């Protein structure tokens, strides 16, 4: 992780601790001190990890407005009966409320996808930021095609064929970019420190409009407008 942090923030400009699959600390972004909260190692997000994430966000809010960077690497929600019994959806909703509180209190919020961002884990944690950037080689998806095949009882070959043809179905950072859910895809040769500073200057939920401009989601924006203005 140190190599990644050096590249994102500069050497000697970060102090981030890891515990299990959770990372949390401070780093300099441009000339501002930011809170960094994230997961790594394709973490499965269970109630305990969800509580750590929300606690870190609330701590940052108590310190007053400053930038918050989420680093997401998640295989999705933990799949256990125990977590369902606890009401994992309620723990995820609590993270979402914490992110919303941070935004209302004036924190600027950016998410960086480092590895994979899957389904419920990504929904709760990361997808509500104002700006979402993906590092090269990252993967974004809703569900593994093999699992989807078992759940839907549709042949894996049929789903693979569909994935080749349909950007609204197929996993992939580029598809999410076209649909407006990822704002920036970074490349190996970029200066990540510079890109991170400039990412922290956006707000509002413009994803449907961006998805329309990029040709990836042609209906989301007009239909929402139609209902909103009818």
């Amino acid at each position, binding site marked *: 992780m140190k190599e990644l942090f050096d590249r994102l923030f500069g050497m000697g400009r970060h102090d981030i601790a890891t515990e299990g699959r959770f990372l949390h600390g401070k780093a300099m972004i441009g000339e501002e001190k930011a809170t960094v909260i994230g997961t790594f190692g394709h973490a499965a997000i269970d*109630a*305990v990890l969800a*509580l750590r994430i*929300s606690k870190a966000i*609330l701590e940052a*809010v*108590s310190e007053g407005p400053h930038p918050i960077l989420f680093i997401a690497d998640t295989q999705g*929600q933990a*799949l*256990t*009966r*125990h977590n*369902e*019994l*606890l*009401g*994992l*959806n*309620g723990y*995820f*909703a*609590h993270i*979402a*409320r914490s992110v*919303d*509180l941070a935004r*209302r*209190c004036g924190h600027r919020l950016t998410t960086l996808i480092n590895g994979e961002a899957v389904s*419920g884990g*990504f*929904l*709760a944690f990361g*997808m509500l930021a104002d700006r979402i950037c993906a590092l090269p080689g990252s993967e974004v998806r*809703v*569900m593994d095609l093999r*699992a989807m095949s*078992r*759940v*839907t009882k549709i042949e894996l070959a049929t789903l693979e064929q569909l994935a080749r043809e*349909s*950007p*609204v*179905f197929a996993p992939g950072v580029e*598809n*999410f970019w076209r*649909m*407006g*859910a990822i704002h920036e895809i970074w490349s190996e040769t970029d200066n990540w420190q510079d890109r991170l500073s400039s990412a922290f200057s956006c707000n509002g*939920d413009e*994803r*449907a409009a961006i*998805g329309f401009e990029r040709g990836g989601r042609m*209906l*989301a*924006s007009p*239909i*929402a407008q*139609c*209902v*909103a203005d009818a």
Partner: protein
Amino acid sequence: MSYFEASARTRILGLVDAGTFQEFCPPEMRQTSPHLARLDAPLSFDDGVAVGRARLSGHRILIAAQEGRFNGGSVGEVHGAKIRGLLDRAMTERPSAVLLLIDSGGVRLHEANAGLIAISEIMRALLRIQAAGIPAFALVGGASGAFGGMGIVTRLCNEVIMSEQGRLSLSGPEVIETVKGVEEFDSKDRALVWRVTGGKLRRAQGEATRLVEDSIPAFRAAAKELMESHFLHPLAEKSLHDLLEDQERLSERSIEFSDARDGQAVWDARLSDSSRVPEIDCEEFNRRLLAK
């Protein structure tokens, strides 16, 4: 009339004041899913959700109802955009409440990416209306329950009204069984599924704020009562203090039930008498909950 058995539109008509429902982007506009069409899958002229405005006891509300019988109430691009648009509309129309009749397995897998993004847009739009002082109520009592992203959306609402047949959770039992095996979660064991996700468990935990009988008038009465109580105690923005309290409560629950895998453990801790819970009616359940 059973809420569980009713269609989305029957639920709306039974919940709101007679003759007041006005639908936006109605089926006559034939806004179907182009992604389902490409797969030759069945289409619906409303893409599985009805949205509009109405009155409840004379008060102006906005209302959305998912049709659980169309693709499991799943959220695709059009379906999601209709709900998001309704929430955006609430910012200018300022209704007394927004009612979301959730009946959904979550993201529609045929257009999974669009569905996932739509749900995150709904989450953000919902948080925005609440910050503007407009309360949102989730009603959960249909066959498809409230799962996946819609389980998260449900818990973002200020009030959650459930019947005992309603189910509220994140991953569906079928998904857990498929990925982790039948010994982790047997999705065919209906009684177990109900003890882990059903209305009586969620009410005992406080995840649902009301438990009502499976009838449309019972849901209407609860929604009306909650709306009136929100008039008396207008919604304040959630503060850091409120969220720290939520953090503490959720944390305590995860410790208290750190190895629980069956709802009986929660009933044992939360009800004055936890015997025969699946058999008792709502009135008896609510009495036992209050008595503890």
